[in-house]
């Protein structure tokens, strides 16, 4: 199989067609999305804000890296 064939192979295509703006800019979609975001985030935010943030941040210290 040459390279062109490889790239035309179905396994090389995105699994589903792309559509621009699938996030949806209409108002109802955005409201629904915002509500879902807040529901998902609020508990995690509350947990983080009740923890010892200074200790957590300090523990995240890394030595070097690429």
């Amino acid at each position, binding site marked *: 199989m040459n390279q062109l064939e490889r790239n035309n192979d179905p396994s090389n295509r995105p699994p589903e067609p792309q559509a621009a*703006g699938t996030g949806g800019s209409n108002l109802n979609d955005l409201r629904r999305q915002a509500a879902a975001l807040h529901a998902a985030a609020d508990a995690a935010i509350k947990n983080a804000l009740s923890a010892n943030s200074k200790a957590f941040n300090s523990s995240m210290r890394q030595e070097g890296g690429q």
Partner: protein
Amino acid sequence: MSNSISDTSSASCKNDGVVAPKLLGSDVELGNCVLGLEQEYGTGARASRALLREIEGFPLPKPSFSSSWVSPLYQSEPPATNPQDWGRKYLPTNGGCLYVDLDHLELCTPEVLNAYDFAAAFHAMLRIARAALRTANARLPDGVKLVAVVNNEDGQGHSYGSHLNLQMTRAGWDRLFHRRLHQLLMLASFQVSSIILTGQGKVSSGRSREGSEKGCYELSQRASYFECLVGPQTTYNRPLVNSRDEALCGRFTALGCPADKFSRLHSIFFDSTLCPASIVLRAGMMQILLSLLERNNANADFSLMLEDPVEAVARWSRDATLTTSARLLTGEEVSAIDLQRLFFDKAARFVESGGCEGAVPAAHEILVLWADTLDKLSRRDFPALVSRLDWVLKLQLLERAMEQAPDLNWTSPEIKHLDFKYADLDEGLFWACDQAGVVERVGVPEERIQQFTQEPPENSRAYTRAHLLRLAGPERVEDVDWDRITFKLRSQIGAETRRTVALANPLSFTRRDTEAIFRCNEDLDEVLDLLGAPDRDPEPVTYGGGYWLSGSNPAVNPTSHLLTWRGQSDSDASSR
């Protein structure tokens, strides 16, 4: 299958440049630590090793690597090895690998060809690491907990990378780094302006030179760590464009090297974004831009070159309103959106003219996503981008926290803590949003991610790597690298031998190439015969400062059997 690379790029020959298929890989360092354990220089060393221990991969750890789980975080260090490549394990599941690099657990995705698969493979590797994290934590006593964060800086002056690797031709590499410096400046300028699409976002202490704190939100985790335009280094004085030259497609031999034709761009610029759309853009845009450069289709266009990309990325990163401008070589001042639009227009013309054929799968789909995202950024339609861009999503979450606790600001430890929690591998805010359906999957479905946790990509050598590891099992795998595997075998008379199979060509050894071999043979020796491995490896000898195989020293035997050792046929050899 073939170890020759000549057949892989012939379909891509247009204009005066040949384009290599833009195979994608990555090596991604995690931030890792142990809560509840105090150590002077941090706990990354203990954390990364404890995580790696839970990963099943080959070759097996050497005997010095203790298998005891009595107190893994307190054991003494194993004998000194390469601190940037410790305990590397390749996965029989998907053909990727993990190891410890400077005390970070590092995840390497298996080689894939399209940007959507890259995003799926990236998330699959994160899931493998998460499973290890949970298993390790289940073994630990109360009060001690491993944490892994998919980010790129620790908030204390240390950065770690999310490196994106793309296959290039050797000729394209040489033009980029040695002959046509305008290409280098274009690439740097492209990367710098792309942070509006590829940044994870972070809370920056914004410490002034006088020492006063003036925190702010930055688009990019990495921006403030770049100090120069180009260089091979990755741990200090970091360059926007990394010139590390590691092709990973075959060792040097007496009669040349596959890397004579292939090269690999090792980009250290990007953040570890988690939104699938941002990952697709990061990989896909780079595939298209590199193809454009490689095709030698980019004249010295000053309107695509920043006067000072290092300065520009620092400024753009600190402006979430996207209005700050930087100067082009033409003298014009442009915003990051402006410059991205210029690059997009050029890329779109290139793709429409067929420039990416044979090199970038799904190039049109990538363009559609790129254009739509730029349109939304131009309109400052951030609510529509929450689902698509990490820096927008994280900013939304942090602003939500500050609404709920008005005494918090950008210098508050709680806000920095939430910055880390966004990408916490176990219980991060990103995954909470993903599970709530907030995050766009843009062609990266759950099934594909799941598949890559268990199976290799089918259109690269990762397929054969994974299946060879499965067939051999842990006891017979002696050594693995991206482009070869060495096995320990017993002959019929009980003697131990070693056989090495070369996987030099990243685009060969695909499912189509080798599936029948694995289906029809259960004997490793027979499979290795069919894959072109020689009967046994020659004894290794040391020659000069480098590693040579017996008989491969050109001063001794310039027509050695190395090509056979490489698993190449005579016809492959003659094609070079």
